[in-house]
C-alpha cells in the first residue's frame, strides 16, 4: 500500500520516478496547455462557467487561511480562492494580479535602493461577498503576518516591513528596514485576506473564516466534507481570466494506488502533487483519453552532511565523498535514468541557474588522493583515521523509502572503496524531520528539499552563517555551513534589484557551493502527473508549489 503520509511530499515523489521509461522528460516538454486535445487547436473557453473538474490529491487540504502554515495541497485552495499581488509564471516572470503592475526600480515602485515600495492596486476587484477590495486589505494582511500571537506561516521578508501607509483606496506604500530583493517573490506567494471579515474576528487563529474562507479568487468556497472532498464554486464576478469551470472538486484519496485507479476509471480528472506511482508509469502513458507525463519540480535530492561533525567539517572529505559517489549509477540503476544529475542548488529552470559548473564524475583515484593529502590514513580495518578520528558516519533517511535505501547501499559500497565507513540510520518521517533535523542532530541525511526563498533564487535561509538554528540562527542551515564569501554574496544578492546583476551574484555563489560542497547534489526531481484529455489550461509551473495554480483558466474542450 502506498499511503502518502500527511506532510511528507518529498518522500513519495521519489517513488514516482521508479519504473520510468526513456523519453519521459521529452514528453514533459509538451505536457502543457497545448497538449490536451491531441494536436488540434484548442477551442475557445465557454462564455459562462461550465462543467466540473475533479482534482485527485493523496493528501487532504486542511489549512485554508493562506497566511497560516500549510503544505502543497493546501495551496491548491489558496491559489483558487485567493489572489496575491502578483503571481510567478512558469518562465519565472511575475505577472500582476491584485496589483496593476509589479513594482520595480524602473517604474518607480521600488525606490531608495529598495527601502521604499509603492504598489498600485486594481480598482475592479471584489471579495466573494461583494465587498470591494482595497488597500486596507493589503495593509491588514501584511500587518497580520507580523502580529505577535498570529500563527503566521513565515515572516521571512515581512519582518523588515515598517510604516505601511495607505495612499489612496487603491495605492499602498511601505518601507523596508533593509533592502530585500527576494521580497518580490515572497509577495507572489502571499495571499491577501479580507480585513472586513478576519479583522472582526476575536482571534484570527481560530476564526470561522479559517474553515470557510472568503477571497477574491476565481473560485468561491463551496462545501467541505472532511476526509473526503472540498467543492469550490465559480466566482462569476472574478476580475481576471475565467473561471470557466462551474465547480472544482478537490478529492482526497489517501492511497496512491487507489488514486491512480480512480484516475483510470475516470472518477478523478487529474492527479497532481504526489502524482502517479511510478510503477504504473508505463501503463499510464498508454491509457486512452489520458495525458501522463513528468512535470518539472524545483526539489533536489541531496546528501546533506552535518559540518558540525569533525570529518565533514573538512572540505577535502566532502570533495572526496562526492568524487567517489557513482551518481550516474544511482540515477540509471535506481531511478531508471529519468532524473537529470545536477551540480547546483538552483533548479535548472531558474533564471539564476549556472549551467557551467564542473560535472561530477566518479574518480576513485582523485578521491583517495584528496583524503591522502588531507592526512586521512588508512587503518588496519580499512577505515581511514586522522588525529584519532575515524572517517565513519551515518546517513539517515525516511524509513520505508525503498529507492533511497537502495541509494544508501550504493553509496555505502562506493565510499567503502576510499576508506570511508558509512552506516545507515533510518527513521520514520515524523521523527527524522523533527528535532533530529532542525537541531542538526544528524551526521548526514539523504533528503529532498529546496534551496530558494519562495520562487526567488536567494538561498540565504539555507546557506547563510546566521541561519544555523543550533548556533542561534533563524534559518534552515542545518548543515551548519559557514563561508564568509558566500555570506557576502548572498547579502549582496538580497540588496540588488537588477536581475542581471543578481544573476551574476548567484552564478558565482553556485560556483562556491559546488567547490565547498556544503551539500552533495544528486538530481532534480521529476514527479509524474496525469490529466484527462480535453481539459485545457493545465500548465505545470516550477515557480509554484503545485500545478493547479491557474485552475481559474481551465476548461473542458466540449
Amino acid at each position, binding site marked *: 500500500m502506498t499511503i502518502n503520509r500527511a506532510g511528507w511530499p518529498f518522500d513519495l515523489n521519489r517513488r514516482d520516478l521508479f519504473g520510468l521509461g526513456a523519453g519521459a522528460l521529452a514528453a514533459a516538454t509538451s505536457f502543457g496547455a497545448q497538449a490536451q486535445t491531441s494536436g488540434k487547436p484548442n477551442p475557445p473557453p465557454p462564455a459562462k462557467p461550465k462543467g466540473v473538474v475533479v482534482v485527485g490529491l493523496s493528501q487532504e487540504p486542511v489549512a485554508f487561511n493562506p497566511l497560516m502554515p500549510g503544505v502543497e495541497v493546501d495551496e491548491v485552495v489558496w491559489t483558487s480562492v485567493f489572489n496575491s499581488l502578483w503571481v510567478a509564471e512558469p518562465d519565472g516572470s511575475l505577472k500582476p494580479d491584485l496589483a496593476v503592475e509589479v513594482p520595480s526600480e524602473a517604474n518607480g515602485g521600488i525606490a531608495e535602493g529598495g527601502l521604499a515600495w509603492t504598489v498600485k492596486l486594481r480598482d475592479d476587484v471584489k471579495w466573494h461577498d461583494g465587498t470591494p477590495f482595497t488597500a486596507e486589505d493589503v495593509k491588514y494582511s501584511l500587518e497580520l503576518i507580523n502580529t505577535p500571537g498570529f500563527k503566521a506561516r513565515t515572516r521571512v521578508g515581512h519582518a523588515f516591513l515598517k510604516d505601511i501607509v495607505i495612499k489612496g483606496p487603491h495605492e499602498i506604500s511601505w518601507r523596508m528596514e533593509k533592502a530585500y530583493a527576494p521580497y518580490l517573490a515572497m509577495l507572489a506567494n502571499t495571499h491577501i485576506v479580507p480585513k472586513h471579515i478576519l479583522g472582526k474576528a476575536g482571534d484570527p487563529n481560530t476564526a470561522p473564516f479559517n474553515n470557510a474562507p472568503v477571497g477574491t479568487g476565481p473560485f468561491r468556497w463551496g462545501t467541505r*466534507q472532511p476526509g473526503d472532498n472540498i467543492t469550490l464554486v465559480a466566482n462569476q464576478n472574478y476580475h481576471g481570466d475565467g473561471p470557466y469551470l462551474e465547480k472544482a472538486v478537490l478529492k482526497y484519496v489517501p492511497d496512491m494506488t*487507489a488514486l491512480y485507479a480512480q484516475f483510470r476509471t475516470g472518477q478523478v480528472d487529474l492527479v497532481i502533487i504526489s502524482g502517479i506511482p511510478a510503477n504504473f508509469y508505463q501503463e499510464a502513458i498508454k491509457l486512452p483519453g489520458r495525458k501522463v507525463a513528468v512535470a518539472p519540480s524545483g526539489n533536489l535530492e541531496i546528501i546533506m552532511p552535518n559540518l558540525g561533525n569533525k570529518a565533514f567539517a573538512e572540505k577535502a572529505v566532502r570533495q572526496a565523498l562526492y568524487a567517489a559517489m557513482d551518481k550516474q549509477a544511482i540515477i540509471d540503476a535506481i531511478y531508471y535514468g529519468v532524473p537529470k544529475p545536477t551540480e547546483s542548488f538552483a533548479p535548472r529552470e531558474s533564471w539564476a541557474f549556472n549551467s557551467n559548473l564542473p560535472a561530477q564524475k566518479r574518480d576513485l583515484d582523485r578521491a583517495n588522493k584528496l583524503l591522502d593529502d588531507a592526512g586521512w590514513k588508512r587503518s588496519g580495518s580499512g577505515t581511514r583515521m586522522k588525529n584519532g578520528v575515524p572517517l565513519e558516519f551515518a546517513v539517515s533517511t525516511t524509513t520505508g523509502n525503498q529507492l533511497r535505501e537502495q541509494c544508501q547501499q550504493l553509496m555505502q559500497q562506493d565510499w567503502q572503496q576510499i576508506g570511508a565507513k558509512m552506516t545507515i540510520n533510518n527513521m520514520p518521517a515524523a521523527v527524522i524531520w523533527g528535532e533530529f533535523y532542525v537541531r542538526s542532530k544528524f551526521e548526514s541525511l539523504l533528503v529532498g528539499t529546496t534551496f530558494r526563498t519562495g520562487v526567488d533564487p536567494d538561498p540565504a535561509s539555507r546557506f547563510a552563517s546566521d541561519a544555523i538554528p543550533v548556533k542561534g540562527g533563524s534559518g534552515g542551515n542545518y548543515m551548519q555551513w559557514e563561508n564568509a564569501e558566500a555570506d557576502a554574496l548572498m547579502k549582496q544578492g538580497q540588496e540588488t534589484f537588477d536581475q542581471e546583476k543578481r544573476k551574476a551574484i548567484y552564478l558565482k555563489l553556485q560556483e562556491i557551493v559546488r567547490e565547498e560542497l556544503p551539500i552533495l547534489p544528486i538530481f532534480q526531481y521529476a514527479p509524474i502527473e496525469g490529466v484527462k484529455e480535453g481539459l485545457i489550461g493545465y500548465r505545470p509551473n516550477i515557480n509554484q508549489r503545485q500545478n493547479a495554480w491557474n485552475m481559474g483558466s481551465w476548461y473542458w474542450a466540449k
Partner: protein
Amino acid sequence: MIGFLIRRLGQSLLLLLIVSMIGFAILHLAPGGPLSQFAAGGEMTQADLDRIAEQLGLNRPLPVQYAEWLWRMLSGDWGRSYRDQQSVLHVITSHLGATLELMLTSTLLAMVIGAWIGILGAIKRYSLFDALATVGAMVALSIPTFWFGLVVIYVFSVGLGWLPAGNRYTVGDGSLLNQLHHLIGPCIVLALVSTAVWGRYMRSSMLDVVNQDYIRTARAKGVPERQILLRHALRNALLPMITITGLHVPTLLSGALVTETVFAWPGMGRLFLDSISYRDYPVVMGILMFSAVLVLLGSLIADLLYGVADPRISGSR
C-alpha cells in the same frame, strides 16, 4: 444492580484516567511533532517553526501540557485540531457517519452470513460444507485487507467497471442509490474477514451447546430437530455472542483503518491514521479517549445484557 453500576463506573473513570496518561505520554514522547512536516519542505525557517511551537504551547513541560489538557477535557473542551483548527469533537463527529454506515452494514452482513455458516458447520460437523467453511475462514483471515481491497478495485472497478473505485459517493450525486453503489466494494472487503470471525465464533459456541445434556434430553423426549435447534440450542449458543457483540461496538465507531484508506472512505480509521502521521495531538487524544469510552461502555452493556439474557448470571451479582 445499582451498586454494580456505580462500582463499574468508578472503575471505568479510573481506567480512563490511566489510559489518558499513558496515551498522552507515549504520543508526546515519540520523537518528532506536528511541525516536522513543515521543516522537511524547507520553506519555513527555524524562527518560524520555533514561534509556532511556542504559540501551540509545545515547548512547555509535559506534565504541564497534560494537566492543561485534562482540565480542559473535564470542562468539556476537547481542544482544537492542529490540522484544520476545528474543535476536536466536531472533527470526530464529522467522520462518524461514514464509519458507522460502513461498519454497521458490513457487520450486519457478516453476522448474518457468519452465523448461518457457523450454525450449519456445527450441525453438520466434519461434513464437506464444514471443511470448506473452515478452510474458507482461514483463507479469509489470512488475506491482507489492503491487498484484497486493491484486488476488488482492480477486478470490479478497473476491469469490469461494475463498481466505483472508491469514495463514499459521486460528488454532486448524493442519492441513496449512488451511496449504496459506493458501499458495495468496501463492504465486501470488510465483511469477508468479519464473516470468517463470526462464523468461527458461532460454530464453536453452537458446538458447545449441541453436546449438552439438555439437548440430548430434548431429543430423547422426541422434540422435533428444528425445534431443538431454534428453541434450545440456538438461544443458548447466542449467549456468548452477546459479549462478543458488546466488545464489537467500539469497532463499529472507530472504523477500519486499511479499508477506509484503500477505498477513500472518509471515516474514523482514516482520520486516526492522518492525525497520527501529522502528530495532531488533540485529535489523536480525542479519538483515543472516545475509543476508550466506547470499549468500557461496550463491555458494560454486554455485562448488563448478559444478565438480562441469563438470569443465573444476573443473580450471582
